[in-house]
């Protein structure tokens, strides 16, 4: 089971460790679970630069206000559910650190929506 906490203005937070796919650089971060985010992981562009992550591609995205924007995507290694896995992370110009539905696919998510409440992710298979 993966666990997190309800924190900061009722945001459900997971604490993650990410690193360069082949170098030693790594970072710990707090990511907000966002069911409106269709991809796996959103990171700050500055984090991608500090970890020297390779740019894989750029993509067009729709934001919640209906506008269209453009984002770089980077390959990184995420420690997830007890093991390292490769993840393509998206980095918007405006920043933000989010966990999206693609990373949560196959998990059951429960959130105790109170200050300090528990966040639980349980693999469904």
């Amino acid at each position, binding site marked *: 089971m993966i666990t997190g906490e309800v924190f900061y203005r009722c945001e459900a937070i997971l604490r993650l460790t990410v690193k360069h796919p082949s170098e030693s650089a790594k970072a710990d971060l707090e990511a907000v679970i966002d069911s*409106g985010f269709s991809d796996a992981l959103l990171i700050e562009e500055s984090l991608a630069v500090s970890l020297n992550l390779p740019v*894989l*591609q*750029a993509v067009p*995205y729709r934001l919640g206000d209906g506008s269209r924007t453009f984002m770089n995507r980077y390959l990184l290694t995420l420690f997830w559910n007890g093991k390292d896995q490769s993840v393509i992370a998206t980095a918007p110009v405006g920043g933000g650190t989010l966990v999206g539905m693609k990373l949560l696919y196959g998990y059951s998510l429960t959130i105790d929506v109170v200050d300090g409440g528990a966040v639980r992710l349980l693999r469904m298979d």
Partner: protein
Amino acid sequence: MTPTKLSAREIVERGEAIYRDTLRDQLEPGNIGKHIAIALESGDYEIDDDGDDACLRLWARRPGQVQAGLRIGYDVAGSIGAGSRELPNR
């Protein structure tokens, strides 16, 4: 290796131009909704229902060539923010 000084917007726009000029006629309408990764330097591409799978397969074949990640028939490849459901361009 494709220069990474290109902005994200420039990478996408170059990829869209490659798609429009060389790929659209042969790929639509049968692939509407699928994700396509296009390597800017070579024009090589991969198609898949999953954008990440297309990206990584193309990267394995064309390492170091930055890609544009598009969704065929749509003007975006993903979304952030609740309440929107993408529909095809036509």
